[in-house]
């Protein structure tokens, strides 16, 4: 490196960042404001929510809105359904995507190129074009309003296969050869040698899929018709849509539905960000 040492004028260097810091602070405020408003309002009594002029804070706080929303809609059930649907889908998809990604990346077999092109084409198909036939299929299979019906179509994702393939391609060559000489069969090679090497990629993909399914609205809305099978987004959307707006319970319900992923984000932030960053990678 032939870069000259920077002369020591610290002040102008810092001044340069004042503008960008201020802009960032304004953006932070814009992002955080709705969340603060939501949490504080969810702890207000109804008169303090509808008071005029509107106030950000209230004279006193209460948990009554949470009680109200839990008695108005089966929120625990929604939470359970969302968890079963989102985690079930994610676990299967990560496993199957890794298996397929591994084969496409590291094994030569007949039809590999054609089948992988098919995966790439599938990646470009928007969900809305498959929505109505998918509904008919699930209905005819008798799987409407079941977890099987919700999970089955999403047990693999073309993006996941694509992503895992890119990861497996990047692993050093000849990893498998040594294992083959040691007498491990192909299934053993995949589960004992390959999977442990791609834990981070699988986690990032898993978080990405979990986030998508946990938050999905139109898909569970379409494949479930009974209250007992609603997920958090579809149940909440029906709740705010059907009756006269109940301000307090709507806000408390939103807090409950956002909390699980936000807690997960707090602890596993880098996997959330890695998952999104991976969507932008070119092969």
């Amino acid at each position: 490196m032939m870069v000259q040492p920077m002369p020591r004028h610290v002040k102008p260097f810092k001044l340069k960042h004042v503008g960008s810091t201020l802009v960032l602070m304004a953006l932070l405020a814009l992002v955080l404001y709705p969340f603060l408003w939501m949490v504080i309002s969810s702890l207000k009594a109804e008169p303090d929510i509808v008071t005029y002029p509107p106030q950000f804070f209230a004279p006193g706080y209460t948990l009554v809105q949470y009680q109200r929303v839990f008695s108005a809609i089966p929120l625990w059930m929604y939470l359970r359904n969302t968890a079963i649907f989102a985690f079930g889908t994610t676990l299967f998809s990560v496993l199957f995507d890794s298996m397929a990604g591994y084969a496409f990346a590291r094994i030569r077999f007949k039809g590999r190129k054609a089948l992988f092109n098919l995966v790439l084409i599938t990646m470009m198909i928007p969900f809305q074009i498959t929505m109505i036939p998918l509904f008919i299929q699930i209905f005819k299979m008798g799987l409407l309003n079941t977890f099987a019906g919700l999970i089955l179509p999403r047990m693999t994702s073309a993006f996941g296969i694509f992503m895992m393939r890119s990861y497996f391609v990047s692993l050093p060559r000849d990893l498998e050869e040594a294992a083959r000489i040691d007498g491990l069969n192909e299934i053993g090679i995949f589960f004992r040698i390959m999977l442990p090497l791609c834990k981070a990629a699988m986690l990032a993909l898993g978080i990405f899929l979990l986030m998508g399914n946990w938050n999905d609205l139109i898909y569970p809305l379409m494949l479930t018709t009974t209250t007992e099978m609603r997920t958090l987004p579809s149940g909440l959307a029906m709740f705010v849509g059907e009756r006269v707006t109940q301000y307090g319970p709507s806000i408390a319900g939103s807090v409950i539905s956002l909390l699980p992923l936000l807690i997960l984000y707090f602890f596993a932030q880098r996997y959330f960000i890695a998952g999104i960053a991976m969507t932008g990678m070119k092969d």
Partner: protein
Amino acid sequence: MRDWLNKPAKAAYLFIFPSMVILLVFTLVPVVSSVVIGFFNLNMFFKDTSFVGLQNYAKLLADRRVWNSFGNTLMFMLMEVPLQVTLGLFVAVLVSRASWFVRLARSVLFIPVVCSLTSISIIWSLILDPTIGIIPYYTQLLGLGKCTFLKDPNLAMPIIVFLSVWKNFGQTMVILLAGIQSINPTYYEAAMVEGAKPAQQFFRITLPLLLPNVAFCVITNLIGSMQVFDQVYVATRGGPMFRTETAVMYIYTRAFSAPFQLGYASAIATVLFVIIMILSLTLNRWFLKREEAVYA
């Protein structure tokens, strides 16, 4: 049997089997059936099903709600995509330094991406609610009159756009930040030695080298914005006066509420699909040409 476990070329089929079956049954078959269903008169009760040829397509051309919803989708796209990508790019540059504050900012600005559009739409529509919302109160104090935002036919769509940008710019930020961080720092060192200003560095180095990533963001956001549904379904249900009814919202309404016209809705979905394909392929080609010009 042993062959399947020991011969790589055979085991490969075991590895891809589950994924291929699922993709075939639940994506590829539906795509084809969607086109086929579009030629049928088919409702949710599967009674009186009949082949009607191009009748559904003739009908949709004459359906004012089809034109309206496609127009609204186009409006949404034309506002949302440029705003989102520009803001995402701007913020990505702002947070490409490394300091504790910038790192904190990155984490916070990404929070909306994690949240469900359903909850986000509920919260923003309450903040903008004419009865309890703080913002309508302030617009009145500022002498702008009592804005009803989502209930105002002229403001509803811009608000839906705002909400979508607010929710999604963090995603663009992360993708473009990854691109910025992979640019070789020697370019900037050389520029600094030459005395290039930050703006020059951005337009001469960052932007050209980031073009593939920007293209990716534009195209994926474009495809996404053609499918906008959640925020409309939750915040306005397509109102007021159908001003926010988007293509997918209309398809969903046609298919899943009375009289449940699955065939007609499929025809509309097929048209939307063709438009999305043409748009993304055209844009892809346009960006490829631009990239060639940069690297030539």
